């Protein structure tokens, strides 16, 4: 951790706040929601309007999908980005989407407000350098086999290229437990807080892989000090082309947001006691 020149805190109070079209990540509770992948215009625009109504402040959606099997749905590519942009405009939400190929970075930046580096690409250093030169904030997911130190060094790659706006995202790591898709490492949140000034959000959808666990783990993440959440939501999860089992319905999502705001208020009160 001694080489984290830009990632580590210079003083106890330092905190990076990233303004994405008025959403202040690192300051206000940030709720990113939307489908795993962009499938059709009706699906993505419909979901966007629903999550906006439910209290999301950023829209997610994948156009380039890194899939385990080459035969699985790979995403709609550029056409998917256009649909996501349309959904963003119609709902008034900024958009975040994953980029998996360094050659796509400049094109994704034409559409997206935040670019995402997925867990599988966390240590794809040429991709990190490319987004490090982009003029859009980067959400960096933690690799499923990565230590905190390895993860923060990847953030350092982006910062060292000149892009100061990195958001960390904990999404669960591989353990011997198989009941959940991954083991969501909530202990990493206060650790990140102690070491770096970068905001951190949590992905309970991939972190658990189970719809019924999304709510308790979301609340726990906020309690542990996360700046926000990224939650997969689909207007019709059973018809989703990928990761339907971990997607919330718009109704479940809206209910969860209400509870998250109560938790957020509570955490802020507790933090005030320490000051």
């Amino acid at each position, binding site marked *: 951790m001694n080489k984290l020149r830009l990632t580590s805190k210079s003083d106890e109070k330092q905190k990076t706040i990233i303004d994405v079209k008025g959403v202040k990540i690192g300051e206000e509770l940030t709720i990113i929601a939307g489908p795993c992948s962009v499938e059709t215009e009706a699906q993505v625009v419909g979901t966007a309007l629903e999550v906006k109504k439910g209290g999301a402040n950023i829209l997610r959606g994948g156009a380039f999908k890194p899939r385990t099997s080459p035969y699985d749905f790979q995403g709609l590519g550029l056409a998917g980005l256009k649909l996501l942009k349309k959904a963003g405009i119609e709902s008034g939400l900024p958009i975040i989407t994953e980029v998996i*190929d360094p050659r796509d970075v*400049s*094109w994704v*930046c034409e559409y997206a407000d935040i670019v995402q580096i997925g867990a599988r690409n966390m240590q794809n250093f040429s991709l990190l350098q490319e987004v490090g030169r982009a003029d859009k904030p980067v959400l960096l997911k933690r690799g499923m086999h990565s230590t905190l130190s390895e993860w923060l060094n990847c953030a350092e790659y982006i910062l060292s290229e000149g892009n100061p706006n990195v958001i960390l995202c904990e999404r669960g790591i591989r353990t011997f437990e198989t009941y959940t898709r991954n083991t969501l490492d909530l202990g990493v949140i206060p650790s990140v807080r102690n070491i770096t000034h970068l905001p951190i959000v949590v992905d309970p959808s991939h972190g658990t892989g189970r719809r019924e666990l999304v709510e308790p783990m979301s609340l726990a993440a906020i309690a542990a000090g996360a700046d926000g959440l990224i939650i997969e939501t689909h207007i019709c999860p059973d018809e989703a082309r990928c990761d339907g089992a971990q997607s919330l319905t718009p109704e479940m999502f809206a209910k969860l947001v209400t509870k998250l705001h109560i938790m957020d208020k509570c955490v802020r009160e507790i933090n005030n006691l320490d000051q």
Partner: protein
Amino acid sequence: MKDEKINLESVRNKIDQIDNNILQLLQKRMEVARISTVFKKDIEDTGRETSIIQNLTGRENALLKADFIEGVYKQIFLESKRIQSETSTLAAFQGEHGAYSELACRMWDPTLAPMPCEEFIDIFKGVEEGVYDYGIVPVENTLGGMVGQVNGLMLYSDLFVVGAIKTPIHHCLLVTPGTDHRNIRRAYSHPQALSQCREFLKRQNLEPMRFFDTAGAAKMLAEKNPASSCAIASSLAASYYNLEIVKDNIEDLNTNQTRFLVLAKEPAPGTGNKCSITFTTDNRAGLLFHVLQLFADKNINLTRIDSVPDQPGEFAFFLDFDGNLTDPKVQDVLDKVEESTTRYRFLGCYEERSML
């Protein structure tokens, strides 16, 4: 399995391209046939039809049978005669199909048949000679300034301005279907379009390649498909040449607008909200000022003042202003302008529309 799929896909891409070419040629054939009505008395000429069919069926081969050729051409003749007997209204524009002028023409009146012309002078001549009912020409662009060539032609033409339309110009990045956006390196377009997208081209690391016309660049891309290339043109050009839009609205500033004039042989019927005049003044101190003063005194808002060099040492002026001819105030000013200028001509009172 994989090879077969790729082959079928590439064959289908080729077929789509050929169909697109057939449609373009049919369009051109109908346009030429429609123009021919200006030069002939009777629409039907069975002798000519027979000789065309005879000529074409003579080229029969294993894949192209004589009765098929005959069938296709009988259909074409039928449709060609139908459009010749119809009184469709023709509007000439400069450039290839898909030009921004054609887009403006469609916005002005979607029932008009837009007819492409190579040069501005072809539009003026064609309308004067009665080949076309209207001509639509750009006069000024917010980023590029006035279109000098058009003003020069207006000066010595008898045509009237019967309408005007202001349209936003949105550029699209176009590729041939199936092109991977990651492989694009060069962008072909008119120098003005290239300069309006300079920041975008820089961000995407694309080399700007100058071409005489935006729609022409799209057409060239569709026909020749040079490696690693794209074109910058209108969305209309994309549909006309069967190209894919990689990204729309790629212009750096959203203040890119062009004003077009609609020209005809006769003045516009009814009243409008805009008038245009042209005149020359003697080369003496204060003469132009005096003319402008006439408008100022009556509180008439001038919306365009262009000057173009005329005879050596002389300048012609173009004035557009808000108002209409039935207004006695306007009539009074124009009478006075005529008295104090040489070569005065009233270009028209017309409706100006804004699509912004």
